[in-house]
């Protein structure tokens, strides 16, 4: 099994029943990239408003994805292949002050 920690912050957790941290296990018969993980999250963790999470099959603008505290853009974006024990975090940008 592929063990992942999935975290939400900056308000993104409100789409997920206000739970900030999720431990998940995925069947690793096939390879998992972020692309597939996004769909899995939408189908399995998301409580409501899918359009606030995904847009055009990628993350909606204003949410930053991190893998082990690094911007996913450094790792190949949607094509990054997940490893066991990866931490994937979704951070909604804050605008207040």
């Amino acid at each position, binding site marked *: 099994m592929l063990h992942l920690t999935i975290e939400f912050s*900056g*308000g993104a957790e409100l789409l997920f029943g206000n739970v900030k941290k999720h431990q998940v296990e995925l069947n690793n018969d096939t390879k998992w990239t972020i692309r597939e993980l996004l769909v899995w999250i939408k189908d399995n963790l998301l409580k409501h408003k899918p359009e606030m999470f995904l847009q055009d099959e990628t993350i909606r603008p204003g949410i930053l994805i991190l893998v082990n505290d690094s911007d996913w853009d450094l790792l190949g974006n949607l094509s990054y292949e997940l490893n066991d024990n990866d931490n994937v975090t979704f951070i909604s940008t804050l*605008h207040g002050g």
Partner: protein
Amino acid sequence: MAHNLTNSEIERYSRQLIIPDYGIESQNKLKSSSILIIGCGGLGCPSALYLSTAGIGRLGLVDDDTIEISNIHRQIAHDENKIGISKAQNLADRCKALNSLVKYEVHNILFTKTTALNLIEQYPFLFLSIYCTDNVITRYLINDVCVLLGKPLVSGSALKFEGQLTVYNYLNGPCYRCLYPTAPPAHAVSNCSDAGILGPIVGMIGSLQALEAIKVVAEIGTCLNGRMMIFDGFDFLTRIIKLRPRQIETCLMCKSVLSRENLTKKDREEILENFDYIEFCGVSNYNDKSINISIL
């Protein structure tokens, strides 16, 4: 070493002058630098107070708002008997009482394409802090002007128990647009009026904006360019994340700047003129506070 500090300045700043990693050279640089603070609310107050007491040369304060009763639980420069007064003016007055050696400039204006470029051009070093009722459009606009003028941008934001902090457009780090090439849908943006904010969170982030601004100006230490601090005050968790570098191929602004030798004033004006901020952000004007949406 040679310096341009008076004896009274040396006495006043003595406790920072004796820090080995700071010293008289940093104080000299601070004294000869200018910083512009955009937004004189929750983040702007501590930022301005600490930059002022530290002895920055010139401090510009921008805000077109007046003080409201719902501001003062977190905006620690605004006394309860100042409701209705200009935030920028009042913050300048408070700073002046702490340190009259600093030159203060008050700008009671709304940031638009026309005002932004002229104003920021006047400040060799720029430091950003967005006020609470701010909108996404102002963030993109300030970012773009900073990129066009090659000025670093210390960005803080806070909501509820959370805060975020980074330095944009500095050295090899990304700008705001490199990180967020597309604006979020307008109904997905929440602010302090609808989601709330706790005072100590803006206190922490605003103080750290002053710290990063001092480090940029004095050219010391390692700043948060290319990194971002994420703070969750409810569970007390901090993390510092690694960001993508400047996106010279794909970022609309970084590309425009790096593809030419020297931008003229006219070039900059044209680039800003040709970009439709209102359409890009899906809002109705530069001061759009009207969208009242469910939180996220």
